[in-house]
């Protein structure tokens, strides 16, 4: 352990101040006139993430969604706060694994499907006895060119 950090103890008294007494010279009552002109650099987080507390990521394996522009090794942005709707791309847990597919609700047949976007693979019907949950709705895909 380095001992240089002991210097922090010199400010002991300072640290013992109850927080309410911390002096903030530039209080919120007097916003700087420059504030109106401050433009922050564009932030991808703000663009891509609506619900930070509910947003998770997943790595794609395989080619079942290439017609939707989702390729092997891409990174999906998943928002669990969103309600999955017909034709959303979702990450689902089915029969012991995670999968990304298009969620297809057929009200006429009263059936649910997970539909790949690659002609090589057939749609899969979701039946009640399956171990199935929608884990989250995919909102964006990060694909390296």
């Amino acid at each position, binding site marked *: *352990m*380095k*001992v240089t*950090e*002991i210097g*922090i*103890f*010199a*400010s*002991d008294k*300072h*640290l*013992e*101040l109850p*927080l*309410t007494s*911390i002096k*903030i010279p*530039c*209080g*919120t009552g007097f916003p700087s006139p420059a504030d109106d002109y*401050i433009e*922050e650099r564009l932030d991808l987080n703000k663009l891509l993430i609506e*619900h*930070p*507390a*509910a947003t*998770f*990521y*997943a*790595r*794609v*394996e*395989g080619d*079942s969604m290439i017609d939707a522009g989702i390729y092997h090794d891409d*990174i*999906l942005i998943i928002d*669990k*706060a969103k309600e999955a709707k017909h034709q959303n791309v979702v*990450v689902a*847990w089915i029969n*012991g*694994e*995670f*999968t*990304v597919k298009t969620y297809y609700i057929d009200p006429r047949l009263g059936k649910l499907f997970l539909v790949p976007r690659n002609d090589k693979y057939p749609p899969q019907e979701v039946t009640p006895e399956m*171990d199935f*949950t929608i*884990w989250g709705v995919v909102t964006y895909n990060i694909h390296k060119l």
Partner: protein
Amino acid sequence: MNKFALVDCNNFYVSCERAFNPSLNDKPVIVLSNNDGCAIARSEEAKRYIGMGAPIFKHMDIVKEQNIHLFSSNYTLYADMSHRVNEVLSQFSPNIEPYSIDESFLYLSSNRNIDLNQYGIEMRNKVLKWTGIPTSVGIGPTKTLAKIANKLAKKNKMCQGVLDITNHARMNDFLASVEVDDVWGVGWKYAKLLKRNGINTALDLRDANESWIKKKMTVQGLRTVLELKGTPCIELEETVQDKKQIVNSRSFGMDIDKYEDLSEAIASYACRAAEKLREQDSICSHISVWIKTNGFKDDPQYSKSISCRFPEPTSYTPLIIKYSLHLLKKIYKSGYKYKKAGVMLMDLVPAENTQFNLFIKINHSRNKKLMEAFDKINNSWGSQTIRCAASGFARPWTMKRNRISPMYTTDWNDIIRVN
């Protein structure tokens, strides 16, 4: 009437593992302490086989026989998930106090004319949907009663995870069903004393003679009695500390936007948390720091938490402060008005090394002198001539974490895989 809600994540560490690995649902799962030693979290399915705190190596037969899934504790993941849960909860009240890694108090002010039971159900559903973490919600006129309501909500299947105990017709039955040891703020020593005097349940305690209680249990005990009667004595952010983690978090009197001011706050929380840690003779291995803006204002919003592991378990104030500030620097963004910040120390183990007591219960001027002497010796004789006993000499702490799950939310290499 103002009320408190206590939201408690069910078997939190196990639920975090399950959130990213649904194959663990309905299976017995156990999360192990530091060094893969003891059971510190158990799924409902595992509770009948393995006791809380049981050293797992003694039970390997049953682990194999019952196919119990074991995990090393993944505090990086748990701290992040804890922060997410609190972020969702802060949509329900501007006043929220994270009390431990898996529990938070919410202050529900009286001017909301809403059915609180329904409100609790909404909270629970939203946290579950957004984060995947199941919770129980207890609501009451005091923090002590909210705690009890929470316990009952968890136990009683009929409640569906939510109970508002305020003016409940069955209040006496409820209180009679809670052992006095389980009342918030009653330590085991006092519980023994109370039981010797025929006070066995929360109901007995509520109806006990107040002056006798004050004589035997000081004003603290009296506060508990009053709280059981429905008179709030323990305000939000006034904490009766949990033993499993140490949390120090506060709302600021005014919004703070400067890094310097924020770092001063974080340093003071870290300092106090380290003191509490030593008061209970513990050392910790993980620290998490968070900052957030006021979600109930129209200003730009930002909320972030971050955690890391110490090189070895510690309760050494300067090191804890240093780490807390290092973490703050990583998450601080200028241009936001911060309303709240906090420090949490996790993964606590007893500080067995008695030499460590040097740093305990000495006043600050002496402490400072000691630190200065410490510094001097190390400067003239080379660093590490004297060092903190808690950091160990032989470093037996190359921690065993053989069964750790991926850092699903903090490492790009560890995010879930989908096909």
